[in-house]
């Protein structure tokens, strides 16, 4: 069942980063997405959760325009209003587990790439990249090639590059999945901070509840082609269907002195 968006989340047109309407995709008679609609206000992070094979990645591919045989409409109202005639930013950028850093470019050059493509003047480019390197805590590896970086450093660099591209919407498909727990936790907090600082509009797919609650500001669940949404963490946690209360209960029982195992 698709929940009609909560009235409080309906943004005035110029504040909506992403609007998708009636998205439908079928594979071999299976309806992966069934008339899904969603809106993403500017500066929000919509977390999309759901079971494996539920269509989360398909949804992201639809939003990025990369899904063959999809029906529906996707628009980027804020980007369309603000960039008429200019190429100062791209409408959408997708990130997944593979950082896709350019192997022959250093960290500095990878970050600088979108700025060079926009023909940013040299001093401004250097300043922006240096600032980002500082935010990303990659000062010690600025001249390193991607092959010399750790997994976490690669993802930070890829994230920083995406930020410098200034997309209207960032799509993230379980980007921290391949990393170990410590690195993952750090990157989640890192993402949250930069998303707030840069007012990023993001659709973030994950199957990890803790990650969802750390990075998300609005929430959705995709199951059997249908999308259900919640406007904030409290309403998401309060709904028994999301599984948050079961998780809380598990950890309470785990720490209970009366537990038998």
């Amino acid at each position, binding site marked *: 069942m698709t929940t009609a968006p909560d009235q409080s989340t309906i943004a005035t047109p110029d504040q909506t980063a992403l609007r998708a309407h009636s998205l439908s995709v079928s594979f071999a008679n299976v309806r992966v997405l069934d008339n899904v609609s969603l809106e993403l206000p500017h500066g929000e992070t919509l977390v999309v959760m759901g079971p494996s094979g539920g269509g989360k990645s398909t949804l992201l591919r639809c939003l990025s325009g990369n899904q063959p045989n999809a029906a529906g409409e996707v628009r980027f109202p804020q980007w369309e209003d603000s960039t008429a005639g200019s*190429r100062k930013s*791209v409408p*959408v*950028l*997708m990130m997944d587990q*593979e950082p*896709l850093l*350019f*192997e*022959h470019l250093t960290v500095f050059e990878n970050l600088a*790439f*979108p700025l060079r*493509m*926009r023909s940013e003047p040299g001093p401004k480019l250097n300043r922006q990249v240096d600032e980002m390197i500082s935010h990303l805590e990659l000062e010690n590896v600025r001249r390193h090639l991607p*092959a010399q970086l750790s997994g976490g450093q690669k993802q930070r660099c890829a994230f920083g*590059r995406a930020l410098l*591209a200034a*997309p209207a919407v960032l799509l993230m498909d379980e980007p921290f999945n391949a990393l170990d727990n410590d690195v993952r936790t750090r990157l989640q907090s890192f993402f949250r901070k930069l998303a707030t600082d840069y007012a990023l509009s993001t659709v973030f797919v994950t199957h990890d509840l803790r990650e969802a609650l750390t990075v998300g500001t609005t929430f959705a669940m995709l199951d059997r082609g249908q999308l259900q949404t919640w406007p904030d963490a409290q309403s998401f946690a309060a709904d028994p269907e999301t599984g948050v209360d079961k998780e809380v209960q598990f950890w309470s029982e785990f720490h209970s002195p009366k537990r038998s195992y």
Partner: protein
Amino acid sequence: MVGPLEKILGGLLLAIPALLFLRMFLHGLQYSLGLKGLLQSGWTTTHWEAVFRSGVLLESMALSAVTALIVTMLSLVGAIVLIGTRFCYGAGKSLEAALLLALSTPAIVMAMLTRLWLEPGGLIARMLFWTGGISSPAEFPVLINDPYSLGLILCGVFCSLPFLALFFLRVWEANALHRYVSTAVLLGASPWQAVWRIALPMLWNRSRTLLVLIFLWNFSAWEGPLLVGQQSPRMISVLIADSTGEFSLADRPRSFTYSTTYFVLAAAGLAVLTRRGRHHVCRD
């Protein structure tokens, strides 16, 4: 991992070609130093001095190296252009079919076709005759067995380019390079910028060893130079084969001097190839 019997058997089988090549090299070296041969009288460096004084071998090596370099570079440019048509103009699977067809043409047939098309009495000359461009074969420019090795270079490019282009296409697929190119486009690059700044450097990183191999193959080429190459100086394989075919025992040391020099160069080429291959593995 490998049992003792396997080691012995494998080692023996490796020894056969290894010993054959080693004996082949030593035989040539001894012959060139006067230590073997019916007309020889013991250690001497006169054959080596004569060969390098005459300049024939050096000219041949220079010609072989320059021709191989030109063929390799042209094949690289051609392969890049084909990749460009693939991804900027949508040339799809038909391109791969074309490359497979070209690849299945052996060097000797490619050389034959080069003659067929480019010699004064060839197909292009005949087409020009019927369109009024020329009135006799003598008016057609010399493109075969010519002093600039034009026909030979073309033949070499047609042999090497399909191999390189198919390699690029396979590397592109295996490494999902389209994802990197797509990312570059999403980051604001135009399609040509994405191919030039991202795809080509990545392909270059992965193809340097193959380019060395293509150079070495063209350096050692025989069928093409024999059929369409220039007569003087000759490519090194042709020089060695021709000098051996001359029916004079006194000239045998000279041809073995040529072949020994060639084997030393080939060993140097192997050293470069394996060093390049190890570098590439380390980078990954």
